[in-house]
């Protein structure tokens, strides 16, 4: 076969002229690819903008060239390290963060806030803007506070009001507009309050055992590379429990996270692109059917099969590129709209600009998918005999291709290869890419099989006693030139995509909200000192409310495991087993109790007390949370020595627990047997169920007023905040689902168009034989209802399988099939099929019988 004829230019001209009347139609078919290309361009461009912005703002994002952070108060050894760096020219700004209850005495309203006490040279990079402008510069001139705008609303406060933090009083001088390096969504969980660090002592909140973090943000002289500065000191930092990060490190980490997110969302783009490809293939099949006469004439006039193929491949490629380009334009529009949607989630200000590589890649991939999917039906133009000019056969007979047609097999191979390559390009791991490609193939195979099954069942179940129109409609499912496979494939794939997105989203969010709702408590008091605990419990009970849980909290670190000191394990990287460093370095806030808490399950070993006292000796018992045990490489029987504020406590691991972290009760990595920690210094967390909800605020005001050191959280507010985040995520997923649904329209239209000519010809012939408009309508209706039901239901079943696999294996969560929404989507898809089918078939009523007779 001559694929590339020598006289390509005249052929291209001929292709252009010949496409005159078909351009719009062909472009419509190719528009199936547009949304897929749009998705790729939008996702890749935006991801590129975000990573560029991260790169530009990396120092502001981190807060300095280097950031040193610790949860321990400043010891001499820490100060010595900082001095070492200062001697090399590093200038530090300090940021101390801790939670506190904020009270506005004028309104008596309270709210848990994140206090940020800063030194006068903070921030080292970037700029904090305020409302009114310029208030940041005046922050240090007195006991001033700058707060997130939402705090003013919650506390019914205004600028100029006094704000109490612990025992300290501050004047609210303004609100925060832009703080570099923090995502706005973080405000939901605790509004920020910036105060000068020299007034921290007045709050009296930073006492032994308080939850505070200390950050030292360093500006490194231009002549020194931050990495070179930090690297030799890593061991020293580790010894004082300090984490050191450089701007380069945080940039690399953030970029990696964004790229992973891009790839994950890109999967939707890929599936959308494939769905588009199916639409293109169906549309081009319809297009080829319309071109049979022209091809036969060209063949009569001496065109070789290669020349004819060149003409139509050129047309399809041009229109495919145009479709992909239209998609790219749409993608750029979405890219410009995305910062509004994503602003709350990202810690950087994203400056949007065109990304030529993403646009070109989107057009190229979209154009290629359009071309490769068009090639399959286009290859049949080679089979159109010039004899068709003299004696016309049915479209299906004319276009029939041999099963072992080498070029077709090559196109099929290229098609599979393209899917695999694109899937691999979107995966961080080869196995993921291959898995995704295989899953896509499996879905397509299942849909093709169900289409064949439908045709078979239709053939076998047809009964003479059925009304004529129903028989006719059912018979259309298996007759020659039927559209069963094309429609089931397009519809099923579309339905699969939309339902999978929805089911996975519903499962993840349901899990989240169900766990959040599972807790009976609606208010929590923490940092409660031992001498305050009894009074707080009494006050709650006196108000007629219920105490749900009281947990002692003891802060500690791991000192040894099976006799090996932590410092040795951190320093010696060859030591086996390799325990994750975070597990060795962190400060643990543990509890002790004699029973397993609600929401916890023992997965290995036995709860305390199962061992005979004689075997226990002086060693206490500890139960570890599963993921901690995995990272710590700890197992039943291991002996862990804990440094409990200077006192060594030795415990044996006697059980491992599964903990649902999304529940609101305080959860703990390590739970001790009561006797192990009976003398340890502790604080308490008290959870209460207070009704009605208005009483929560009253109780909080009363107790925080009495004990300014304690903090309290209104859990209903937190639940609402979580729901806000959840609904934002849900909107994003629904947007993708609607996007996919919108994409299904041109794809379905193309699939139905593939056999539209045969339908019209048949309908008009029936009209000639006396069929009424109503009868023809009912024939079409019964056919499309059957196609719609089977296509959407198959897609739904596959989606539930896919959703289960994703939820189970990727998100490691429990699965519930969300049948209601799944059926709703299936119903919607079915309605769409019937509507498009009837719309495409309306020409049956327009065409006169003479047209059909002439065509035959």
């Amino acid at each position, binding site marked *: *076969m*001559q694929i590339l004829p*020598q*006289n390509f230019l*005249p*052929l291209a*001209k*001929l292709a252009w*002229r*010949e*496409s*005159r*009347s*078909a351009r719009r139609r062909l472009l419509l078919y190719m528009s199936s690819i547009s949304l897929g290309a749009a998705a790729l361009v939008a996702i890749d461009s935006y991801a590129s903008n975000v990573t560029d912005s991260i790169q530009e703002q990396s120092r502001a994002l981190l807060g300095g060239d280097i950031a040193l952070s610790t949860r321990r108060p400043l010891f001499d050894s820490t100060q010595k390290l900082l001095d070492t760096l200062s001697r090399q020219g590093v200038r530090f700004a300090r940021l101390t963060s801790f939670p506190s209850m904020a009270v506005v005495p004028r309104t008596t309203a309270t709210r848990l806030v994140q206090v940020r006490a800063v030194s006068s040279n903070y921030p080292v990079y970037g700029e904090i803007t305020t409302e009114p402008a310029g208030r940041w510069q005046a922050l240090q001139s007195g006991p001033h506070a700058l707060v997130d705008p939402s705090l003013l609303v919650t506390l019914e406060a205004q600028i100029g009001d006094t704000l109490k933090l612990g025992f300290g009083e501050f004047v609210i001088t303004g609100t925060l507009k832009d703080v570099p390096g923090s995502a706005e969504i973080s405000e939901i969980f605790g509004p920020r309050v910036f105060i000068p660090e020299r007034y921290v002592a007045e709050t009296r909140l930073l006492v032994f055992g308080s939850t505070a973090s200390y950050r030292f943000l360093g500006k490194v002289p231009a002549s020194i590379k931050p990495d070179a500065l930090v690297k030799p000191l890593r061991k020293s930092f580790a010894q004082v429990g300090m984490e050191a990060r450089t701007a380069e490190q945080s940039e690399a980490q953030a970029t990696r996270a964004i790229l992973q997110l891009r790839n994950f969302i890109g999967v939707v783009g890929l599936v959308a692109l494939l769905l588009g490809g199916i639409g293109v293939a169906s549309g081009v099949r319809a297009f080829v059917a319309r071109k049979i*006469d*022209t091809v*036969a*004439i*060209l*063949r*009569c*006039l*001496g*065109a*070789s*099969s*290669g*020349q004819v193929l060149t003409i139509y491949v050129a047309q399809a490629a041009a229109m495919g590129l145009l479709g992909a380009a239209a998609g790219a334009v749409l993608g750029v529009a979405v890219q410009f709209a995305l910062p509004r949607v994503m602003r709350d989630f990202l810690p950087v200000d994203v400056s949007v600009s065109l990304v030529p590589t993403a646009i070109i890649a989107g057009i190229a991939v979209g154009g290629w998918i359009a071309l490769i999917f068009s090639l399959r039906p286009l290859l049949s133009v080679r089979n159109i*005999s*010039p*004899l068709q*000019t*003299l*004696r016309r056969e049915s479209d299906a007979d004319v276009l029939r291709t041999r099963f072992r047609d080498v070029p077709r097999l090559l196109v099929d191979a290229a098609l599979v290869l393209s899917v695999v390559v694109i899937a691999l390009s979107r995966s961080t791991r080869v196995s993921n890419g291959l898995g995704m490609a295989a899953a896509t193939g499996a879905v397509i195979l299942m849909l093709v099989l169900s289409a064949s099954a439908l045709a078979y069942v239709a053939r076998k179940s047809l009964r003479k006693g059925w009304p004529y129109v129903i028989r006719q409609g059912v018979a259309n499912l298996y007759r020659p030139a039927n559209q069963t496979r094309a429609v089931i494939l397009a519809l099923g794939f579309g339905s699969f995509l939309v339902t999978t997105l929805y089911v996975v989203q519903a499962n993840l969010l349901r899990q989240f909200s169900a766990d959040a709702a599972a807790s009976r408590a609606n208010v929590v008091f923490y940092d409660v000192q031992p001498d305050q605990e009894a009074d707080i419990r009494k006050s709650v009970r006196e108000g007629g409310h219920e105490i749900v849980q009281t947990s002692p909290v003891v802060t500690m670190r791991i000192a040894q495991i099976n006799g090996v000191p932590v410092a040795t394990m951190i320093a010696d990287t060859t030591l086996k087993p390799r325990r994750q460093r975070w597990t060795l370095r962190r400060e643990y806030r543990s509890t002790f109790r004699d029973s397993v808490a609600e929401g916890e399950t023992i997965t290995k070993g036995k709860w305390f007390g199962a061992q005979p006292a004689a075997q226990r000796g002086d060693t206490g018992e500890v139960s570890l949370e599963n993921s901690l045990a995995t990272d710590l490489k700890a197992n039943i029987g291991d002996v862990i020595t804990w440094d409990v504020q200077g006192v060594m406590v030795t415990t044996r691991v006697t059980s491992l627990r599964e903990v649902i972290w999304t529940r609101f009760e305080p959860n703990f990595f390590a739970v001790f047997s009561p006797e192990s920690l009976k003398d340890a210094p502790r604080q308490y967390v008290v959870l209460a169920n207070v009704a009605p909800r208005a009483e929560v605020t009253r109780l909080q005001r009363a107790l925080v007023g009495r004990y300014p050191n304690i903090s309290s959280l209104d859990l209903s507010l937190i639940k609402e905040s979580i729901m806000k985040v959840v609904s934002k995520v849900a909107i994003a997923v629904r947007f993708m689902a609607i996007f996919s649904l919108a994409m299904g329209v041109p794809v379905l239209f193309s699939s139905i168009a593939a056999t539209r000519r045969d339908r019209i010809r048949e309908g008009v012939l029936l009209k000639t034989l006396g069929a009424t408009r109503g009868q023809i309508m009912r024939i079409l209706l019964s056919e499309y209802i059957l196609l719609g039901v089977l296509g959407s239901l198959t897609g739904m079943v596959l989606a539930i399988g896919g959703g289960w696999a994703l939820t189970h294996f990727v998100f490691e969560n429990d699965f519930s099939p969300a049948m209601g929404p799944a059926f709703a989507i299936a119903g919607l898809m079915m309605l769409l099929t019937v509507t498009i089918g009837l719309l495409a078939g309306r020409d049956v009523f327009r065409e006169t019988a003479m047209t059909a007779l002439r065509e035959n």
Partner: protein
Amino acid sequence: MLIAKEVTKEYKSGDNQLAVLRDVTFEIPQGSFVAIVGPSGSGKTTLLGLLAGLDTPTRGKIFLDDADLTQLSENGRARLRGEKVGFVFQSFQLIPTLTAQENIQVPLELRGESGADIRARDLLERVGLSGRGHHFPTQLSGGEQQRVAIARAFANSPRILFADEPTGNLDGVTGGRIVELLESINRNEGSTVILVTHDQNIAAHAARTIRLRDGVVVEDTAA
């Protein structure tokens, strides 16, 4: 010279072989004007398809000048058609998306020849449609469409022109003019014209008549 030697064409009909043409043999010298006539179903169109290389016989040989059509590949026959054969059909078979002039240019462009537009304008003038080159087929009358088809058939100066019921869709007067046009081209260009028709009046214009019945040549006025 066009030679058909014991040409047989069979189609499969269910389990049976159906012979549409049986042992058709004749020779048509260059420059002849021949009419193939016969009733519906006699095999006229099948024969025309075979002679023009649109299809291959089940048995027998067909030679166009020195080329054995039965030995050529599909693309080889296409090339031969592009160089030596012209077609005129009952339903005109103009490409609806191309203008009259562009339709005429197609055979030349397929061969990559330059000056296709000049040649097309010249041919349009010769068939009396010089002002209609930019019209699309649907904007032309039946007679005009057929004249464009004839101009297109002559674009590559074919050695042989096949016309399948060229007047079948036209009224008597217009049909007569089309046949006159074919006659004049046959006379002036020296091309062989093979006309398939069931209309005796049209066939009467031909110098030689081959009559078919049930796939067999029952009369050949040259014999």
